[in-house]
Structure formats: C-alpha cells, structure tokens
C-alpha cells in the first residue's frame, strides 16, 4: 500500500500543476513574464535526493514515466518532457553524491535541474519551430521566473517530505 503512495502523489502533483497555472494566469494576468510549473520535476528531484539509496534509480524511472505523462496530458508533443526529465535526473544522479542533503543543497539541485530541463525542452521546441524568440529574452522572461516560482513550491513541499522519504527508504530496504 505504501509503495503506491509515491506514484499516487506524483499523479496528484501532475494534475495540480495544471490547475495552479490556470489559477495563476486568471489572477495575475501577467503577460510579459511566463512561468512554467515544473512541480513534477521538483517532486522527482526530492525523491532522488531523499528516497533513493546508493544503488536505486527511482528518480530516473519516475522522471521518465511522469515526463511522458506530462507530454500526454499537457503538450500533445510526446517525448520532449520524457527525455528532458530523464536526462536531468540522469545528470543529477551523477552529481548528487557530492553534497550532503539539506534544504540548501536541495534548492541548488532543483534550480540547476529545472534550468537543465527547461533549456532542453526549449531547445527541442526551438528546433521543431514551436518557439521563436531570442535566447536572452527567453532567459529573462521565462527561465528565471520559472526557476524562482518552482523554488517556492519546493519550500512548501520540503517540510512534508524531508523526514518522510528517508523513513520510507528504511522501511523498504528493511523489508527486502
């Protein structure tokens, strides 16, 4: 039962991020600044840092699966988020052992992860021709606000997971 909790909460986060964007746009109507909610990625990075043990790859696997789900639900262009999130988690998997995990390193990882993923997705969209704006305009109006907004989500999320995830990991490894 507990094993299903993580994918289930990821699915709910996936659904909520669309609702949140809808509310944010209807309240602020900020048209010059674009914020993209990468909540699923933030959650997956938390899984990778707090739940994954040395030899498990839940972060990458969830990144790929829920990247694909985002593609299906929100974008109609399959594969971009899947590869973007998968690649990001793959890179973080290599880097994460350098740091001791606390809120600051998690924030750093999330910021870097979102930048990598968003740059990658923007790259693919630019290649296919969906997006056509100068690079620095993109950085100032879309990338930086996106990173900041998602860090706020991380700060909200972190208290819920930073004790819970390591405890679940212990339960899993004990059970095996």
């Amino acid at each position, binding site marked *: 039962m507990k094993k299903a909790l993580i994918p289930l909460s990821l699915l*709910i986060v996936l659904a909520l991020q*669309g*609702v949140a*964007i*809808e509310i944010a746009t*209807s309240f602020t*109507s900020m048209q010059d600044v674009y914020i993209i909610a990468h909540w699923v990625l933030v959650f997956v990075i938390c899984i990778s840092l707090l739940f994954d043990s040395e030899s498990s790859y839940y972060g990458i696997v969830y990144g790929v699966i829920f990247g694909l789900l985002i593609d299906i639900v*929100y974008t109609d262009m399959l594969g971009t988020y899947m590869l973007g999130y*998968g690649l990001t988690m793959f890179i973080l998997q290599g880097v994460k052992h350098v740091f001791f995990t606390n809120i600051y390193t998690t924030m750093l990882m999330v910021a870097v992860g979102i930048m990598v993923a968003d740059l990658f997705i923007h790259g693919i969209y630019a290649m296919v021709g969906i997006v056509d704006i100068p690079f620095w305009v993109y950085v100032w109006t879309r990338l930086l606000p996106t990173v900041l907004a998602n860090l706020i989500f991380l700060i909200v999320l972190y208290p819920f997971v930073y004790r819970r995830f390591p405890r679940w990991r212990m339960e899993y490894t004990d059970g095996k």
Partner: protein
Amino acid sequence: MSFFRKKQMFIFLIGIIIVIGLIGYSLQDRSKRSLPEQFISDTVGFIQQGVNIPIRYVKTFFSNISNVKDTYNENKILKEKVSEYKTLLYDNQILEEENEELKKLIAQQDSLHEYDSIQANVIARSPERWLHQVTINKGADAGVEANMAVITADGMVGKVLSVSHNSSTVQLLTGFDEFNRIAATIKRDDKDVYGVIEQYDEEREALLLKIIEESDSDLEKGEVVLSSGMGGVFPSGLPIGEVEEVIPDQYGLTKTALIKPAANMYAIHHVIVVDRKLDTTDGEEEEIIEDEEEDNEEKDDEE
C-alpha cells in the same frame, strides 16, 4: 563496471530513438487521441475536476465580495438597460417569427448562423505556456468534437484541438499559427469586408486579419470582426475581436488588420463549445447526396 557503462549507453541510445520516434509521431496532424492517451488525460482530468470544486467556491466567494461593492451603481444602470431591452425583446420575437416564416418559404432548414452549445468549465491550463492550451471538462461523451469553436460570453477564445471521453484540449486564439485559420468578416451597411485570420502575432499581441475583399471605405479602429462561417467549420456571427490598426503587407498589395481578441485569454472560466448545426465540410458525403435526391424529388413533384 565497463559492462554497466555499456548498458547505460545502450539504454540511453534506445531512449533517444524512442523519443525521436514519439516526436515524429506526434508532429503528425492528428485530431483524435490514441486510447492510452485518452485514458491518462481522462484520469488526470478527473482529479483536476475534483480539485476545482473547492477552488471554484473560494473564487466565487471572493468575486462575490468585490461584486457587492459595485452592486448599487450597477443596479441603477442595469434597470435602465432592462427597460431598453424589453422593447428590443419584442422586436426580436417579431423578427424571429418573420425569419422562420421566410425560411420556410425558401425551404431552408439550417443556416450557417445556427449552432448547438455545450457548456463547459476550464479545469486546467497547459503548464507548457508556449502552447496556449487549456483543458475543459467536457469530452466526446458530451458531443464535443475536434475543430469545434469555443467561445465565452465576450467572444471567441479558440477551437477544440483534441478530444477524450470526459475532457478535451482547447487551442487558444493566442496560440493560433498558420495551420489554424478563421474566415472572418466585418459587417458594413453597404459592402462587407471579408478576410482570413492567419495567425497570432506575439510581438504585437494581436491577431492578423488578411483582408481579401475590401470595401470602399477604410477600416476604422474599433470595428467588430465576426466569424463568417465560410471556413466550413465555425458558425457565422461569433465575435472575434476589434480592429486596432491596419497595416500594408510586405509587398504592399494587400492590407492586414491587427485584431485585438474580444475575450480575455488569461481569465477564462466558463466556456461554450459551439457545434455548428449545418454539416461541416468534412462531414459524410452521403448525406449531401441524399439531400440532393430529395431536392430532385421535390422538383419532380412540382413539375
């Protein structure tokens, strides 16, 4: 260790091949989603709808509070308007009856203007904001089909992009590109102006209306642009926006008008999906043939 590296490399390459395949598959023009896609977007849509119920209560609560403040003044103005509308209503009824009688005379059942409406709520917006898509809570089960027009009380907001059983995705006007054109018209007393809305210009924040048939007098700022129904998909008479500026195109041969959309694309809650009564052009051809046969029979009878 080297075996493990090889395995990782292998998985990575296979992943890239799959992704390129998926992108190629999804770049095709497809209006109907595949079965697993429908299932997933329906599931997510279900959760979103559940989340939306309390949110809607809170939203209406706050908007009620702000409404109460203006109520007194609004009420005064509205009372005046209501008395105006009463006379309009009678006029309208008379005209409608007349219209129906006239239509019977010329044996025309449906016009381009008539449509069935399907009420829906916006439940989510694509986090990938490049795409300008929103999700609504009605799907194929409620009769929504791809390419139907979507309007709010103010005017047109977009068209249905893809449909699942209980939810569907709407492409907003701000995301329209050269593949989503709308036949549009500006009503004049003497001679209407016809044109095609080609795409949304993000820099100017306006829709580009390429004018095909001009009138003698120039377009003026503030004139209302309506859909003409000639594109074969949308009904006629849906308000799209107002003329902001007229510019010549790059060769100076035709003119392009910048249209400001009538509806606010950033605050959409309740929408109406418009189902044109008259068959759309990609409908079944059999029906048209049958109609022709009936027409012929009628002619025979007359003879």
